[in-house]
C-alpha cells in the first residue's frame, strides 16, 4: 500500500472541507472495496477521508411508505433489520447475500453504490425500486445515478448521505453468484412499483440496466411465464473467465423468472 494522510472528520461539512483542501483525496466508508484496492496498489490517494466517524450517516427509518437507509449503514444491519424485512423483504435478502458475514459487518450501502461495481448487488435494488439518492448537494433519481462502469452521476467531492426506497407492492431479487467472489455473475431485481413494473439487471453489463421488454411483459402478467420466452441479446454484455456474454444473457432470463416466482411466492 502506498502512503496517504488519514483524516476522520466529525461532520459532513468538515469532510467536504478536507476533501477540497487535499490534492488527490478519497472518501472511505466501510473500506471493503477501497482497502483491497489500496493493497493491490490500484489506487494511490494522497488523503483518505474516513466517513466512519459520522454517526448520523448510519441508520434505517421507515415512514410514509419509504424505507430510508443512511449511506454508512452496514450490509449486516440492513439484512437483519426487522423494519426493512417487513417493508421490503427483497432488500433485506439482497443485503444478506452480499459477500460473506465479515464483509457485511463493515461494508456500507453508500460505499457500494458510489463505487458502482458492475457486479455489485445494491445498484439493482436502487434502480428497480426507483430509489432516490440523497447527497450533500442534491437528490438524484435512480435512473440518472449509474452512468457506466464504476461511474456515477456524483461530482468530485459529493457525498452520498442516504438512499430512499419507496415500498413496492411486490419485489424480489435473484442472484447467480460467482462462487469464488460472491459477487453477482448476474442479478435481477423485479419490483411492482407505483410507476409500473421495473426490472433491473446487475452483473451482466458494464453498468446496471433496466430490461424494458421484461417490464412490459410483466406489466401485463406478473408471472414467471411472462418472461420465460424473452431472449436477451448478448451484444454489449460482459464476457470474462467466469462466463461468456451468451451465458450471461441466458442467465438474465433465468434469474428474472426466479425473481418473479419468489415475488409471487
Amino acid at each position, binding site marked *: 500500500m502506498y*502512503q496517504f*494522510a*488519514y483524516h476522520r472528520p466529525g461532520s459532513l461539512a468538515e469532510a467536504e472541507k478536507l476533501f477540497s483542501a487535499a490534492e488527490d483525496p478519497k472518501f472511505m466508508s466501510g473500506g471493503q472495496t477501497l*482497502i483491497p484496492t*489500496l*493493497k493491490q496498489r490500484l489506487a494511490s490517494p494522497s488523503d483518505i477521508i*474516513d466517513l466512519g466517524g459520522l454517526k448520523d450517516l448510519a441508520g434505517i427509518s421507515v415512514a410514509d411508505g419509504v424505507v430510508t437507509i443512511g449511506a454508512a449503514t452496514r450490509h449486516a444491519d440492513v439484512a437483519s433489520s426487522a423494519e426493512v424485512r417487513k417493508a421490503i423483504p427483497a432488500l433485506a435478502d439482497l443485503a444478506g447475500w452480499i459477500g460473506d458475514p465479515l464483509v457485511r*459487518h463493515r461494508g456500507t450501502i453508500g460505499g457500494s453504490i458510489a463505487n458502482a461495481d458492475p457486479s455489485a448487488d445494491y445498484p439493482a435494488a436502487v434502480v428497480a425500486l426507483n430509489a432516490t439518492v440523497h447527497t450533500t448537494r442534491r437528490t438524484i433519481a435512480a435512473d440518472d445515478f449509474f452512468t457506466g462502469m464504476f461511474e456515477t452521476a456524483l461530482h468530485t467531492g459529493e457525498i452520498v448521505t442516504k438512499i430512499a426506497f419507496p415500498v413496492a407492492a411486490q419485489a424480489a431479487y435473484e442472484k447467480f453468484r460467482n462462487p469464488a467472489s460472491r459477487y453477482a455473475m448476474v442479478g435481477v431485481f423485479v419490483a411492482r412499483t407505483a410507476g409500473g413494473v421495473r426490472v433491473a439487471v446487475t452483473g451482466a453489463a458494464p453498468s446496471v440496466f433496466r430490461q424494458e421488454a421484461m417490464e412490459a411483459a410483466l406489466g401485463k402478467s406478473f408471472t414467471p411465464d411472462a418472461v420465460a420466452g424473452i431472449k436477451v441479446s448478448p451484444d454489449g454484455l460482459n464476457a470474462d473467465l467466469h462466463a461468456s456474454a451468451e451465458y450471461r444473457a441466458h442467465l438474465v432470463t433465468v434469474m428474472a423468472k426466479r425473481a418473479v416466482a419468489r415475488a409471487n411466492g
Partner: protein
Amino acid sequence: MTAVSMTVNGKSVSADVEPRTLLVEYLRENQRLTGTHVGCDTSQCGACVVHVDGVAVKSCTVLAVQAEGASVVTIEGLAKDGKLHPVQEAFREHHGLQCGFCTPGMIMTAVDMIRRHPEGLDEATIRAELEGNICRCTGYHNIVRAIEAASAAMGAKEAAA
C-alpha cells in the same frame, strides 16, 4: 504517523502508526499477537478474522487507525484462566483442524456466528456463515461438526445458568 489507541483483549494499548498499517499488521507486529494469520492478499480467506466492537471482521481489510477507540478481541483473548473457550474445545474434540492455519479465523467467525444465532445452528446455516473463511486442508466437515457441537454446548450452558 498517527496516534491510535484501542483495547486489545481487555488491555488498553496505544502506538504511533503509519495510516496505511492494517489492523492485522498492528496486532501481529506491534502487539506481537501472532495468533491472527494472513492467508491472502485479496480479503477472501478469513484467516485474519478478529472481533472489533463485538463483530467479526477481516483485520486485513481494516486500517489500524479505523480501530481508534475500539475494543478488539483476537484468538489469544478467548481462553480464560487457562481454560479453552468452548469453541476452541470443540475444534479440538472434533478434529476441526489439520495444519491449523485457518483455525484462528474459523474460531473467531464461529464465536460470532453462535452469538448471532442464539436459536441454535444447523449444518446449512453454518456452511453459509463460513463463506468468508477458507480452509485448504479439512474439507470443512469437521469444522462444521465442531461449530454445531459448540453451539449446542453453549446454548445448553446458558439454559442451565
